[in-house]
């Protein structure tokens, strides 16, 4: 199967600023990709380009189509949740289901109602009567009932309390994801999605700072907690990043053998958050 998303030299300019600056990107099928970056990094602009919501320069193909000119056709196979607040507030649950059913060729009403059965959302409710968490449950139920090949989630759990957040990913993994589908998630709450990701992309100032699979993170990156007396030896091995925590020095290495580091201290795989901080600070000591 070809790549679900394929971007080469993708750029987006707003006035004088390059929100997205000449990036290359591939997302194969059956992956869960985390797109992580600070505000203003360009993730929203990149997402909008991918979803046909904005124009762009460069080459971009999603499921073999050009999003800018074929948005409607693309939306038959792509779903997105743009964040919690976008369902029309005046619409009733049953009306929303009715409209989606008529417009979307791959929507299954039974599936949607099955997902809703385990929630408190009722057909007669208007969206404005629902709590934020229930709105997300509804939107997710609708989205999961669509047989799409790509699901794009832009901060889907922003502002939700913990119960709904956990449920969100549980439902997604349980009932939706399989090897033919891909999911692209952006989120600030990196820890929450860390373990469900298969691939990681860091974006900063419109450029890609990191693009690798979680397996590669496991293999290539090592965090070393070093005792004071071995600090110089540790520095000599050209770490990517260094920080200090409660008297211990913590170094991040890329592509350095674990054996080489073995005697210098405790080793472990960096968490995505730590990797993120390390990569985003333009290399160097904390």
């Amino acid at each position, binding site marked *: 199967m070809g790549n679900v998303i394929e971007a080469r030299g993708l750029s987006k300019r707003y006035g004088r600023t390059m929100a997205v600056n000449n990036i290359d990107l591939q997302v194969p099928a059956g992956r869960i990709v985390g797109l992580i970056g600070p505000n203003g990094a360009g993730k929203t602009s990149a997402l*909008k380009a991918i*979803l*046909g*919501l*904005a*124009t762009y320069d460069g080459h971009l193909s999603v499921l073999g189509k050009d999003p800018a000119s074929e*948005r*409607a*056709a*693309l*939306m*038959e196979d792509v*779903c*997105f*949740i*743009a964040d919690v*607040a*976008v*369902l*029309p*507030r*005046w*619409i*009733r649950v049953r*009306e929303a289901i*009715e*409209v*989606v059913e*008529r*417009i*979307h*060729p791959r929507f299954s009403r039974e599936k949607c109602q099955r997902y809703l059965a385990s929630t408190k959302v009722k057909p007669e409710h208007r969206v404005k009567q629902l709590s934020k968490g229930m709105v997300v449950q509804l*939107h997710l139920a609708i989205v999961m009932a669509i047989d799409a090949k790509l699901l794009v989630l832009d901060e889907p759990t922003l502002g939700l309390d913990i119960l709904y957040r956990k449920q969100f990913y549980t439902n997604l993994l349980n009932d939706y994801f399989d090897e033919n589908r891909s999911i692209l998630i952006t989120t600030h709450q990196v820890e929450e999605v860390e373990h469900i990701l298969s691939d990681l992309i860091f974006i900063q100032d419109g450029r890609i700072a990191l693009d690798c699979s979680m397996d590669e993170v496991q293999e290539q990156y090592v965090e070393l907690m070093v005792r004071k007396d071995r600090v110089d030896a540790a520095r000599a091995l050209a770490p990517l990043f260094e920080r200090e925590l409660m008297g211990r020095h913590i170094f991040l290495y890329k592509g350095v053998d674990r054996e080489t580091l073995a005697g210098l201290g405790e080793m472990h795989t960096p968490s995505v958050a730590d990797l993120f901080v390390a990569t985003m600070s333009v290399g160097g000591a904390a």
Partner: protein
Amino acid sequence: MKRFKALLLREYWENRVAFRSTPVALFAIYMVGALMTLVTFNYFDHEFQTMREAVRYLAQFDESIRAHGVYLWNLASSTLFTVVLGFVVFFYLLGSLYDDRKDRSILFWKSLPASDTLTIASKLFTAMFVVPSLFWLAYVLSMLALYLIGTITVLVLGENPWTLFVGIGNPFKAWGLVLVSFYAQAIWALPVYGWLMFVSSCAPRLPLLFALVPPAVFAVLQIWIDFLRTFTLKTNLGGILWEWYANNPMINCCGEVNGRVDAIMGIPITDTFDHAPTIANMLDRLFSVQMAWGLLVATALLAGALWFRKRATDN
């Protein structure tokens, strides 16, 4: 096709107050008005004397005159519906491509596989045909109810409603004419509808202001410059708009004089259209050069609206 119908449903659900409650309210107003009239008439005398006299007075007229009167009554009763319809459609179109940008629900609609072209088409279709049809339905139901009330009243008074007003005057022709005129007006108003949708698609806020101010400024400037140059008030946007209003296929009962209308509300019309409310005259306008120009303008504006809509997101 299925998608188009789904979008029409959306428009109806989204604007239920304007599309359903308003016509119902108008119907209610007519009913209340009729009942209040009856009550007033009988408040002062309980023998229905005033009403008996009124009915006898009416019965005096020649049947053909009475028939014509009934016909005109049917037409004239549509006025309230027409006026309110105009306001409803105006504000509906103004919000059609603006509201969902403001509340961000456009991101939901754009996540569905319905093209922007189809979306705009569904909104235009709703404004041109769905809403007028709903208002027409309310109009007809109002008339039927009024006929019913009238019939009962006349029967109670001991006269024959059928010969008096029910069996004469061809109400169906009036109702049909009103319906056709609604659709004809919609077509005639396409340039305006196009302008409203255009503003709706790109105004960053306060679309009403953006819709009214530029044409007003433009018209004033034109009139002034024109005045300074030629000392007349002819070819300018203001004049064009007035001509448009004066010449629309709407039924101009108030100005009708022997089938030809020379003035509306005392202001002379410079065009050559016959103003009698007939279908032939409506078609006349719709197939005129002015209409062609109007369609051109409308197409350009709608293309502009589409261009903006394709690029619209939640900001």
